[in-house]
């Protein structure tokens, strides 16, 4: 029953959005489609080929991978503790001992920048994933069932969308009271995720509205396939391409929002190293110690650039219509 949709020869031309269905289920392909049929390259493989040809996309991937490595091995890579202050060595200029100098508390800037990557990446990625896990099911259910469910879900989303994003994020952070460490990071993540849920809900709802009218979904209904299975197995894979692209680009936006909240003093609190906070704290000393606010800012820029290049490359590769 499970694969009835395919075994009845319902496989029409692949949606140009780039279904990843084939790639995920290599074992099923032989059963569902007779081997005698010449199969053209799958949309995913086509997408990957396009992605590999793009130099900028590869630069983006390189930056993202490097950042993940830096964040994972921050303890090994950082020459010193990011929070240990040394009152005898404040405002050291960049040197061999302190490649990026030290701040007003004598803390090693290089170590702080390296450790700061953890907060940025953790908040950037997890807030988007959180928004995704709430927003995508909401959008799928709203779009698939329509009617009252749709109205209810989308009105709730409209309430969030009615807010200027930063106003809501700032007030949420004040409500949560920013703190340091893991809990503080989770608060920022939650605040950013909440303001970003409607983006995914709307995106997915739009895709589902068009997909549910397709013949293969009708065939599923006719065959008595249960709704959750249709949603997971037939609807979701076909709206994956825009979700993947929005997610990657969304990480870049979330990192900027996190840095902005930190800059306003509403992100993860010190002593936990955070780029936005470091930049803000060191602007006060910009007159004599310009390099101090330069490095955290550069770190934010490179990270966001990496995810933007990656996301742009994915968009061009997975969905040429969006280019």
């Amino acid at each position, binding site marked *: 029953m499970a694969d009835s949709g395919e075994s009845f020869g319902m496989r029409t031309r692949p949606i140009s959005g780039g279904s990843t269905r084939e790639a995920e289920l290599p074992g099923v392909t032989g059963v569902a489609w007779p081997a005698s049929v010449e199969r053209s390259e799958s949309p995913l493989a086509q997408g990957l080929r396009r992605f590999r040809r793009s130099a900028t996309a590869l630069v983006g991937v390189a930056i993202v991978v490097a950042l993940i490595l830096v964040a994972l091995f921050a303890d090994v890579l950082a020459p010193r503790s990011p929070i240990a202050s040394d009152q005898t060595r404040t405002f050291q200029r960049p040197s061999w001992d302190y490649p990026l100098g030290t701040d007003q508390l004598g803390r090693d800037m290089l170590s702080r920048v390296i450790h700061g990557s953890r907060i940025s990446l953790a908040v950037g990625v997890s807030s988007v994933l959180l928004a995704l896990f709430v927003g995508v099911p909401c959008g799928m259910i709203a779009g698939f069932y329509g009617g009252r469910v749709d109205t209810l879900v989308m009105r709730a989303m409209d309430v969030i969308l009615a807010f200027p994003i930063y106003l809501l994020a700032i007030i949420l952070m004040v409500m949560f*009271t920013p703190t340091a460490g893991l809990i503080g990071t989770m608060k920022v993540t939650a605040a950013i995720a909440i303001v970003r849920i409607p983006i995914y809900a709307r995106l997915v709802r739009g895709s589902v509205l068009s997909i549910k009218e397709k013949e293969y979904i009708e065939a599923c209904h006719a065959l008595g396939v249960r709704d959750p299975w249709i949603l997971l197995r037939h609807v979701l894979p076909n709206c994956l391409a825009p979700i993947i692209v929005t997610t990657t680009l969304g990480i870049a936006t979330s990192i900027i929002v996190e840095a902005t909240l930190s800059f306003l003093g509403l992100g993860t609190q010190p002593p936990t190293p955070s780029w936005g906070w470091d930049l803000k704290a060191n602007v006060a000393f910009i007159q004599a110690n310009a390099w101090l606010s330069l490095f955290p*800012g550069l770190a*934010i820029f490179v990270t966001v650039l990496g995810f933007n290049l990656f996301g742009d490359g994915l968009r061009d590769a997975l969905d040429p219509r969006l280019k």
Partner: protein
Amino acid sequence: MRTYILKRLLQIVPTVLMITLVVFVMMRSVPGDPVVALLGDGYTEEDAIKVREAYGLNKPILVQYVIWLGKLCQGDWGISILSGRPVLQDVLVRLPVTLELIVLSMGVALVIAIPAAIIGALRQNTWADYTATSVAMIGVSIPEFFIGVLLLLLFSIGLGGLLPSSGWVYLPGTCPMMVCGVSLWGNVQHVLMPAIALGVGRAAILTRLLRTSMLEVIRTEYVTTARAKGLAERPVVFKHALKNALIPTVTVMGLQVGFLIGGAIVVETLFAMPGLGTFGIDAIIGRDYQQVQGFTLITAFAFVVINLIVDLTYTFLDPRIRYA
């Protein structure tokens, strides 16, 4: 069309009410109490009760909201708990600063983006296009405050203090207080860096969008027709292509307003400008309920009105779009 505008104008009221209500409830569930901050070291339980009574803080939250709303209808925006000043007066003093910042930054964005996008689209895949798209990519990836810091380094520190790093000088004729610094040149000096810092990001987003939609429009048949009938390149690009390409761009710019408000807060903080952004963030962090309500009211109103203007711009750009 007229009924549509009327309908949309009527929708502003419930939306603004909803935003202010949600913020009202959220702010009052924030841990910490402005009364404690107000009384400071001399805090006693009796004084606190008196102050709460004086400001109506002892009533249920929804009752407080209705009271706030009732006073608002009479033009009374309430009195700040911490500063003791009327909120409306503070908002009016700070509004021109933020308005000037936002208008100029949008100007900066348009001045950079429109030529860059046109050049990028008309000379697709040439070095000019690559430069435009790369610079736009960089611009999208830099947060406003870092552009601000770079500008500070360049113009306030690098070039021997060419531009002031903080503060504000009002445009002649806009001074909202009894005494304030007024000079045209001083105003330009103070607004230049913040406007660029806020505008560059917008310019980058605009360039990317506009270039993409220009590329689409330029390949359409009516552009080919316009060229074929011997129209000069300039009217083809500006009247036929650009106007149509602006439609999707305007939508996204409308959505960007939410980010622009955050950007204004950040840039005003960085350059220590006495605008609404710094007013709002100080009020929120200080839990000054009345000021937060005032700030929310004016931001929500601006947000909703700008989105309405965006929708109405469509009919100007594309007369085929008619709102019944």
